[in-house]
């Protein structure tokens, strides 16, 4: 991730200063370089991904402990509460930290309570869009992965469906 950022920065710098250098960098990125014309064609196809917003490196100035730089955050859309709740909260994108597997957690020897020294385990942040969440994570210098959103499937349901004739299929009488 940091390598990616460094590349992006280098690319951004070179874009400002020397176009020749940037083209050489792009040529470096592509694996096969048969001829200059082909290279130019490949260049036009592969759009270099650079951030639209200028990302301020906030991890140096935010005052957050540097241990957080070694952690991974998850960006995801929470699933709906399966009880009688609405689905409004599932439209948000959340950022939370992966749990620590080792000494960050322990069990209370007397009562068996689960304890944790991880101060980020109860912290989660909500964003309106995935891009906002990604931008924030990049700004803070956190490694992140995006958990794909769950596909919501609402099965078709109507009462008449119970009495439709279907050949070679056992009818199940639904009472509800």
């Amino acid at each position, binding site marked *: 991730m940091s390598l990616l950022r460094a590349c992006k920065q280098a690319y951004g710098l070179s874009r400002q200063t020397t176009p020749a250098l940037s083209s050489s960098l792009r040529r470096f990125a592509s694996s096969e370089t048969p001829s200059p014309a082909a290279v130019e064609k490949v260049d036009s196809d592969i759009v270099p991904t650079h951030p639209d917003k200028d990302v301020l*490196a906030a991890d140096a100035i935010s005052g957050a*402990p540097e241990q957080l730089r070694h952690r991974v955050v998850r960006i995801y859309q929470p699933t709906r509460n399966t009880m009688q709740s609405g689905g409004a909260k599932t439209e948000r994108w959340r950022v939370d930290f992966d749990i620590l597997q080792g000494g960050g957690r322990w069990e209370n020897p007397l009562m068996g309570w689960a304890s944790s020294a991880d101060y980020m385990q109860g912290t989660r942040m909500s964003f309106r869009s995935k891009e906002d969440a990604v931008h924030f994570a990049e700004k803070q210098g956190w490694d992140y992965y995006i958990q794909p959103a769950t596909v919501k499937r609402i099965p078709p349901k109507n009462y008449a469906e119970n009495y439709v004739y279907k050949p070679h299929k056992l009818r199940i009488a639904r009472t509800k």
Partner: protein
Amino acid sequence: MATIPARLAQATRPSTNAVEARQRVIQLYRDWYRSAPEIIEIYTLSVSPAHIRHTIRQKFEANRYVTDLRAIDVLLLKSRQDFQETMNCWKQPDHVVGILLKPTERPQKTFMQKFLEGRDEDAVLPAATGVV
């Protein structure tokens, strides 16, 4: 000790280029460096000026590779404020000893110690666990 509130205050201003930012950083480092004996005198610390300079140097070295001008400006501002608060005696001795001069690195552990503990890596562990 009466202090003038505006003493050592500096107006915030953005750096125009990397050279200017570098000069400002060096000037700030110089101010810290020269004021080491005075800090000891003000807060009656039992450390040497060399120790204070070493700690200050570590704090500067930690941000050595920050290249973003805006980030550098914020770091400069924070350190200037810190400097002003220190030199105007707006801090308690505990703030100086426990925050400014507190060593940041953790005690070194051997491979066997880490293995037997079976814990997370130190780099990942939260700072305030109390189990280190």
